[in-house]
């Protein structure tokens, strides 16, 4: 049986309509008008034990809303969420015992309490046996490097320090599942890397299932075996990273350094090559690698110019996702209908 089962999950928010002008405002005091915003629309998926799933999508796509329903702090409008066989919002405390969660924008630690005290409270909160607590603390301390700030009150921690402390708190009790909503938001490269390493280790050594949302595609590339893409509350893609790359990462980029300036050529264009940024003697070319081979292009160029250097770049995951999002916008709802644009 799958660890997490989500079926036709839907969440609607009622939003009060804001009125401009005096009379409409007065009227709204008596009779409130609401508009319904569907944040999550008929999403279904299952997640097995030990998977690391990247849950991505543009801003306002419905990622956090889905996570909140899986954690049990938001009640779905309709549809089913089952985690470990339990319905999270009906068995909130029972479910909370077995999961860990980090919401990048909020801390679950006690604001006015030193980090180490906060973590000690976590021990009582989840009834963690002494030896397990000690063992985990030692391990996490090494990876997350908590020592330098463990006596500091949470409220005075820097963002990256707080995130490390929060991750530690979320994992001390060896949860089956950990939900990470933007765990790397606003962190420097070193801390980001450390956190990724930590998540990888936890998943590998304890088989912890990880569900993670992020806007940093490096997180996805380095951690996730599976990606789910949502947009406008709908699940648009669900599959492994390789397939996604093959389906959307077919554009390749080539940079060529030539002795003389490169002139645009109709012939190349007809072969399906597009010209990118050109500065002095360096030229960028992009093309669909499924329809034309890079050796054909370079051969064509070498016959006409003396080539000093050239590099072929595979499309970065960042670009793939960008293409995917743009593709979704064109195929899905038109951009002007998006709520975000109206506010």
């Amino acid at each position, binding site marked *: 049986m799958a660890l997490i089962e989500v079926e036709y999950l839907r969440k609607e928010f009622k939003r009060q309509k804001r009125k401009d002008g005096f009379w409409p405002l007065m009227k709204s005091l008596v009779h409130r008008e609401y508009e319904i915003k569907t944040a999550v629309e008929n999403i279904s998926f299952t997640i097995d034990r030990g998977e690391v799933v990247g849950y991505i999508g543009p801003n306002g796509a419905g990622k956090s809303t889905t996570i909140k329903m899986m954690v049990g702090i938001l009640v779905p409008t309709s549809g089913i969420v089952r985690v470990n066989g339990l319905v999270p919002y009906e068995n909130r405390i029972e479910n*909370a*015992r077995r999961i860990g969660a980090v*919401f990048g924008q909020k*801390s679950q630690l006690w604001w*006015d309490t030193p980090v180490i005290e906060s973590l000690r409270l976590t021990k*009582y*909160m989840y009834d963690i046996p002494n030896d397990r607590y000690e063992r985990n603390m030692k391990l996490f301390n090494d990876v997350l490097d908590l020592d330098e700030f463990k006596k500091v009150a949470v409220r005075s921690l820097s963002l990256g320090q707080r995130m490390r402390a929060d991750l530690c708190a979320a994992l001390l009790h060896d949860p089956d599942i950990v939900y990470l909503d933007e765990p790397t938001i606003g962190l420097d490269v070193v801390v980001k890397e450390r956190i990724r390493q930590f998540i990888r280790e936890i998943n590998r050594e304890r088989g912890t299932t990880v569900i993670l949302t992020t806007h940093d595609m490096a997180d996805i590339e380095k951690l996730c075996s599976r990606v789910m893409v949502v947009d406008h509350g709908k699940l648009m893609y669900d599959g492994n990273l390789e397939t996604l790359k093959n389906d959307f990462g077919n554009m390749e980029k080539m940079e060529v350094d030539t002795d003389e300036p490169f002139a645009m050529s109709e012939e190349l264009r007809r072969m399906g090559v597009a010209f990118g940024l050109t500065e002095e003697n360096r030229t960028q070319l992009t093309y669909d690698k499924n329809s034309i081979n890079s050796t054909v292009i370079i051969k064509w160029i070498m016959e006409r110019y003396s080539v000093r250097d050239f590099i072929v770049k595979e499309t970065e995951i960042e670009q793939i996702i960008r293409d995917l999002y743009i593709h979704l916008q064109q195929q899905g709802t038109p951009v002007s209908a998006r709520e975000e644009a109206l506010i």
Partner: protein
Amino acid sequence: MRLALYREMTLNSLRTSLAFRSEVILFLFGQLLRLFVQVYIWRALFANSTELSSQSGMITLSEMITYSVVSTAISVFATNDVIFRVSRKVSSGEIAMDLIKPMSFRSVLFCQTLGVNVYRILFELLPLMMVSLILFGVHLPTLANGLAFLGLVVGGLILNFLITYAIGLIAFWYILVWQVNTVLDGLIRLLSGAFIPIWFFSDTLVKLSYFFPFRLIYYEPIAVFLGKTTGWANLLGLFAQQLAWIVGLLLLQRWMWGRAVRRLVVQGG
């Protein structure tokens, strides 16, 4: 039972209060000033008479002074910021962080409030009482009444927490909790007997006070302290009333909570 957890949560809240130690001297000064004002008002009201007649027989000036002192003592820990805490957590979405923990939201708040109360007893109540005992003569109760008084105060404390928590839960529906709080303050001030003992109330007001639990927080415990209420039957009656209100409020909260959670929208993220 998860006593170790509750103990640790309470201690943590106490430690936080200690770290932020507010100005004890200033607090003491303010409370004493208020007491002086009350004592002088009562002196003026008593004028030349030594006793005033009331709903529970003759009351002497020194009994009234004791009443004021004890009432101030109760108010030190019967004021909490639970309403404010709940509404802030709901409107900011911070409540999500409490809900992902395997513990009831009410217990979290109760432990936090208890920790603050312990702090206030140690650093506000004790100094205040020592100074009051020296400045104003205070009647001491008999052993039986003293013990009953302590029991009633604890019950009153729980009652007070539950009332404020129930009102705090309104924040799930309306964010206008401050206005509700002002109404509540007025009601408590009037109907609890915190300032004017219920024995000086008119008949209608006395009847009205029975419809609210507030008298069980201030007036009744103080009356026990002063020996106006005696006898097992009467004392047990008071405890029974407290218990009934507590059970009623717990039921009300369970009902409210079930509804509140369904309509909770966790903001942000």
